[in-house]
């Protein structure tokens, strides 16, 4: 497979990373090299193999339905780029 520059730009948009024309061109070559490496996977037949998503077969733990977290919003917001009245500020979304 080989990615086009437009495909690179589309992936960058999906990943919300601004990319210039020049960067897209340079990135395209590197991604194609990497996908050539990844393509080696196709050499092995994996029919009937159970996919492994995780190293351990764990069951998700359950806990009692009680409040355990303390309110730390002032502490957490002290490192935010922009806050006002306990809210994180972003550019206007709804006109």
């Amino acid at each position: 497979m080989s990615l086009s520059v437009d495909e690179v730009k589309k992936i960058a948009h999906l990943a919300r990373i601004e990319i210039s024309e020049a960067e897209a061109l340079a990135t395209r070559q590197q991604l194609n090299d990497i996908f050539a490496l990844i393509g080696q996977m196709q050499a092995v037949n994996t029919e009937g193999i159970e996919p492994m998503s995780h190293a351990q077969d764990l069951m998700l733990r359950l806990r009692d339905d009680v409040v355990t977290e303390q309110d730390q919003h002032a502490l957490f917001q002290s490192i935010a780029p922009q806050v006002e009245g306990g809210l994180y500020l972003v550019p206007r979304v709804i006109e």
Partner: protein
Amino acid sequence: MFNSSLKELTAALAARKISSVELTGLFLDRVEKRNGDLNAFITVDRERSLMQARAADSLIASGKAQPLTGIPVAHKDIFCAQGWLTTCGSKMLSNFVSPYDAHVISRFNDAGAVILGKTNMDEFAMGSSNETSFYGPVKNPWDRTRVPGGSSGGSAAAVAARMAPVATATDTGGSIRQPAALTGLTGLKPTYGLVSRYGMIAFASSLDQGGVLSRSAEDAAAVLNVMAGFDARDSTSIERPAEDYARDLDAPLAGLRIGVVKEHFGDGLAAGVGAAVQAALEQFRKLGATLIDISTPNSGLAVPAYYVIAPAEASSNLSRFDGVRYGYRAPEYRDLADLYSKTRAQGFGAEVKRRILIGAYVLSHGYYDAYYLKAQKIRRLIANDFAQAFTQCDVVVGPTSPTVAFPLGAKASDPVQMYLNDIYTIPANLAGLPGMSVPCGFADDGNGGSLPVGLHMVGNYFAEAKMLNVAHQYQRATDWHLRKPEGI
């Protein structure tokens, strides 16, 4: 003091030959003297460290010392520590002073250990040379024109240059073991789930595991005793009874069955590295171990599968860096979408962006089965190879890295060449098995010098005590781990 084991330092503290304040001060002076050259630390905060040292001295004075009380420990800058700048080697977090402690940091704090500083690393732990850090490359103390390995290059250089007695690190594809090999250290990546990932900034959550870079297996055991433990805040933390990882250190190796992976001695392995590993195998035979040839036929597929799984998980994990709640925000933007994409374009470095793009692609509509599902099936085959091997042997060994430390810049512009550094270490991450690297000699650096070589060892799930035993017995019979760089 700088070459003392943790046991010796603990004894000196207990006997009041030295205080934690004095010990911490000595190491901080060293960092001040040597860091300009090596760039191993991103953040040092003398007052904050000495405050902890004073508290440790009170604990010792009141007879409440535990193992590691008063010992300065360097932490990879991936572990959140309250009040400390925690950057993960990225511009994205270059202003992030953590409001909370990682579980690992709490464990060290509870033990009365001292935070010596935060060490440099590849950005978001993505790299094998420590050259992707926003804070610049780390130099290898054995040869300052060469890389220390990565991503835990700062932790490795700090311990190898005797700027810290021991350091924490993390390993997603080899990031503890490969730097250990390249800097002559002992590196331990525990079984997946043994060390909590809470507060350890996520790269690939099904592979990431915290561990240790130390000068000996004995020191690694003492540190793992503090680091490991169940934590309900990490959904993959394993709940099992506490164990003493040092309990088997002194057991003889007679009867030990060592599996030698034949696939790991083929093309691409530097001759000098292969020779050092073969000599180590001979040493194990002398110590009473039996060598068994084993095969892990799918290990050649580990790197391709890893470069699907790890970027896929990374693209999801790193979506949280959006410039809204913490970290870097682009100074100028038109609207919310522009805020996101400019913040991420400016905040992430080239390698991180590459991996996010790979991950976004392999998870996108229409490609999932061909890439992600395929990689997960190969992951199963690799785990099965190991399961088969462990019916025949107790540990599996081979080289940690195909070459000794390579020159700075040598592979920086060729991602695929860089990725192949981790060809021997990645399988253990995919399977979730514990892995170690132990210094086993030196090999020609191609330039008239010689540099450290690491012996790689993989054990079965939860076999850390056995692996530390094997490494410790080897270190009792050899002195490779005691060698240090010239001028250090």
